[in-house]
């Protein structure tokens, strides 16, 4: 029998080509924008350009009169006008209030995309602008305008452990800080898109670029008033997600579905990039307040964290993001007394949603900044301070009171990363300034919970189907999606290993809600873990029927059959073997069932949401990044030269895909940390393009060195742990600490853009004397003495 821990020789940990690479590299993969059907119409959205207003009326006459327009729908045309993955606080089309830029007034279907978007611009909304609130701290004030409901604080999540007041008395140093951590756009290369195909008034198919076909199924069924079984969602090949195609795609899908329902035609909706940047969910901006203390030896005595999370105008997944943020709020450190309060706050900014790391990156950034501040106050090396406090096998209780399973590899990832990065050498003899460039090195760890939080554990299950074909090849279907991260290939690898066949014999097809059961969302670094475990379960069930047939062909007992190298063979006598092809042919000839389903669910856990104590996650992964940077203090420019990434990954399923996740996570994390700034003016993004919203290019990519700390994990199939999110989380914090090291100042606002660094340097800025000279009163102006200060 195949245990999920049993090492299986074969493709595991290897680098065989990804299942989807050849089609993608030759341009033959069909994304949703590449699909067209006879009679297909194009959809467009009429959206708000102000963030807070009363809607007095919506005039669609001009849009309806436009050439090639077939339908224009408003809120009155929506059977059930509510969307929202957890709470129904968001209308699909607005009725009386605009709460954020991008709120929809009307939907247009036309014969060409150009006509649809032109007509959408002709929809007239008469609005009375209302005061808005654009900062999560300002939003909690008593006199702040209300955004959505009776209070701007939607909910507060707590972690309470030990007595922080008592422990504070034992602290020799206390750091108090307020961090302003900015949001981020996913900037997947493929914009949001979907295609809705109605079949009469009975049922509908949605083909969508998405991470969560089951969310779309539920959203569309609810808006149209259909049973779930009448809504089929096929995941189209998806050009990047990063969380941006978890919750959000339900909205465009519901829009396209409504238009398809009303017109009887297939309807395709593809977002122009500007709208995609302007209207979709973002990483939450947060204001994080810290009061942390340590004793003389550097031992953390207490940590108090209060976070104001900018949820935007609709709560979406913000509550779940807050839950994950709480677990990571003090990092993988042992602290006896902890108080965490995270407020989910409504504002009129763009709404927050899922994004790689899901709340953990913001609080990790703050925690790792505070660790460096403590190290400075104590006169300790930042790595030494972390070693004093980091979790390990002997000290493994996190802030929720959960004792982690061993091995706890936080210390190992720290040691590996600092060793590979040459930390000690760098600290002992920091490189001299190179022209204007000054060098710095910084470190960050993360404690990451694999799979879904306790609050979402009802969704934490996964379905798979394995079909052995008559020629010995294998079809696999799973409910979790491929968005670039490599899930199809990971599933192929696991199925091939479990069946002892070459990966080329296994085809894993894109998910479709009619082929597998609801498997929850493809998020939380759970794709390979959950679908892999379900595949192993399906193979186990298939073998109940396969092994007896193979045993008969081999002349052995079913219990002696093992599958390897493309053969069924007798355990211990590999020369007694029969090709899988022959076994499959025999099963087919005897009309034995060759399809098997598999299922996996995480273990039920206990957790008290009032105190934040219990077991929020079943498994954890640790990671440590060390960044080496060069900074030009005059211009405030940061060049990230190298990132060393050590990860606790369990066992490797597919090496190229794993490394690819780390490379991509590091570069996306770097972008968030230094250049990606959502510039909002009263809730409106003023830089909705890739010239002004700056994501890293190939010229910005640092050298990345990877260290894998392997162990047998029970989280995923064949010993694997999740990697998608831990690869992202520590980078920005390590870069921040490296920049502060290089400049000798503390920067508590993310991203570290040039103006921010120049401002942080203040009087220490190399050209501060110019500013000073220019602003000095004229009478004191002595040109002869102008010059840099000694």
């Amino acid at each position, binding site marked *: 029998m195949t245990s999920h821990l049993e090492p299986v020789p074969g493709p595991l940990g290897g680098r065989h*080509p*990804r299942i*989807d*690479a*050849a089609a*993608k*590299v*030759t*341009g*033959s*993969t*069909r*994304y949703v*924008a*590449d699909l067209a059907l006879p009679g297909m119409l194009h959809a467009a959205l009429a959206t708000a350009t102000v963030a807070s207003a009363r809607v007095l009326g919506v005039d669609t*006459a*001009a849009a309806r*009169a*436009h*050439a*090639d327009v077939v339908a224009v729908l408003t809120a009155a045309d929506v059977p059930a006008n509510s969307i929202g993955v957890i709470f129904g606080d968001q209308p699909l089309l607005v009725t009386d209030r605009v709460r954020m830029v991008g709120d929809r007034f009307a939907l247009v279907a036309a014969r060409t995309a150009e006509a649809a978007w032109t*007509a959408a611009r*002709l929809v*007239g909304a008469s609005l009375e602008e209302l005061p808005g609130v654009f900062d999560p701290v300002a939003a909690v004030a008593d006199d702040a305008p209300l955004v959505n409901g009776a209070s701007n604080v939607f909910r507060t999540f707590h972690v309470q452990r030990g007595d922080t007041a008592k422990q504070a008395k034992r602290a020799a140093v206390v750091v108090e800080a307020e961090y302003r951590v900015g949001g981020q756009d*996913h*900037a*997947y*290369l*493929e*914009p949001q898109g979907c295609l809705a195909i109605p079949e009469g008034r009975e049922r509908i198919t949605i083909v969508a670029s998405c991470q969560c076909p089951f969310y779309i199924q539920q959203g569309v069924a609810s808006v149209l008033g259909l049973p779930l079984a009448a809504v089929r969602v096929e995941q189209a*090949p*998806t*050009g*990047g*997600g990063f969380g941006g195609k978890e919750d959000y795609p339900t909205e465009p899908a519901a829009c396209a579905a409504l238009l398809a329902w009303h017109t009887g035609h297939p309807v395709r909706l593809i977002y*122009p*990039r500007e709208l995609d940047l302007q209207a979709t969910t973002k990483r939450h901006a947060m204001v994080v307040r810290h009061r942390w203390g340590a004793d003389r030896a550097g031992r953390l005595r207490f940590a108090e964290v209060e976070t104001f999370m900018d949820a935007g105008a609709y709560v979406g997944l913000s509550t779940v993001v807050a839950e994950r943020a709480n677990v990571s709020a003090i990092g993988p450190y042992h602290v006896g007394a902890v108080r965490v309060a995270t407020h989910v706050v409504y504002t009129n900014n763009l709404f927050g949603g899922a994004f790689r790391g899901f709340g953990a990156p913001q609080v990790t950034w703050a925690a790792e900044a505070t660790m460096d501040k403590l190290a400075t106050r104590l006169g300790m090396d930042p790595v030494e301070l972390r070693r004093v406090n980091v979790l390990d096998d002997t000290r493994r209780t996190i802030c929720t009171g959960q004792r982690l399973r061993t091995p706890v590899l936080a210390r190992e990832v720290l040691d590996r990363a600092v060793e590979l990065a040459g930390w000690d050498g760098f600290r002992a003899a920091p490189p001299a300034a190179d022209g204007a460039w000054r060098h710095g090195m910084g470190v960050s760890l993360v404690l990451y919970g694999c799979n879904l939080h306790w609050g979402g554990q009802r969704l934490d299950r996964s379905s798979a189907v394995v079909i052995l074909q008559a020629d010995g090849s294998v079809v696999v279907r799973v409910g979790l999606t491929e*968005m*670039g*991260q490599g899930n199809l290939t990971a599933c192929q690898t696991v199925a091939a290993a479990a069946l002892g066949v070459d990966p080329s014999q296994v085809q894993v097809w894109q998910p479709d809600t009619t082929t597998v059961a609801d498997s929850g969302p493809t998020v939380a670094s759970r794709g390979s873990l959950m679908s892999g475990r379900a595949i192993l379960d399906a193979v186990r069930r298939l073998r109940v029927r396969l092994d007896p047939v193979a045993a008969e062909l081999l002349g052995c007992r079913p219990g002696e059959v093992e599958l390897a190298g493309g053969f069924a063979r007798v355990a211990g006598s590999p020369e007694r073997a029969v090709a899988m092809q022959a076994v499959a042919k025999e099963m087919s000839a005897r009309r034995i069932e060759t399809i098997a389903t598999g299922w996996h669910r995480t273990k039920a856990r206990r957790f008290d949401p009032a105190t934040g104590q219990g077991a929020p996650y079943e498994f954890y992964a640790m990671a440590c990044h060390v960044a080496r940077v060069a900074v030009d203090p005059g211009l405030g420019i940061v060049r990230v030269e190298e990132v060393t990434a050590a990860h606790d990954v369990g066992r490797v399923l597919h090496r*190229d*895909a794993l*490394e*690819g996740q*780390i*490379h*991509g*996570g*590091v*570069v*996306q994390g770097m972008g968030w940390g230094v250049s990606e700034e959502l510039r909002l003016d009263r809730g409106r993004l003023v830089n909705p*393009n*890739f*010239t002004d919203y700056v*994501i890293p*290019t*190939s*010229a910005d*990519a640092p050298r*990345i060195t990877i260290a894998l700390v392997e162990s047998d994990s029970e989280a995923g199939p064949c010993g694997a742990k999740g990697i998608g999110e831990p690869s992202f989380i520590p980078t920005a914090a390590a870069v921040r600490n490296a920049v502060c090291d290089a400049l000798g100042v503390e920067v508590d606002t993310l991203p570290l853009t040039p103006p921010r660094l120049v401002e942080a340097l203040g009087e220490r800025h190399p050209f501060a004397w110019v500013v000073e000279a220019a602003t000095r009163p004229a009478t004191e102006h002595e040109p002869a003495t102008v010059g840099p200060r000694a």
Partner: protein
Amino acid sequence: MGEDRRQAARAPEVERVRIRLTINGEARGFEVAAGRRLLDLLRDDAGLIGTKEGCGAGECGACTVLLDGKPVTSCLVLAASCDGHAVTTVEGLGGSPGTMHPFQRALVTHGGVQCGFCTPGVAVTGAAILAGGHQPAEGARLLAGNLCRCTGYEKIFSALEAAAEEVRRDE
């Protein structure tokens, strides 16, 4: 409102232009609106959906094709201006159907493909870099017009080096 909007809503008269161009080695003729983008001609008129639209503003590079051998963002090129010129798309990089360019093969074998949406543009630019005789070390700078959000570029660089090596061996 009303009157002026209704006038704006009237479909404007569109000037159409007859053009002939070579796409992936094949001579083709089209009649296109004067404002039609090369990207739309390739995807909608020629059925070559391998060229992707990521931004429509020349910022992301997903729509990169070769125009007379030089990489251009096809969302910023008017189809009518390509009359008499040669266009190579990702579908034609390998020279003949079913054949891949060495850089395409290297992207597959070196794990340089993730979501795949930037990949056609990356493949086209990489092929131009190799054809231009550049050193693979220049790739970081020369590929900077092709945004990729998945790979961190690292394995794209390895693929470029491997392909350069292969091209050098074959010469």
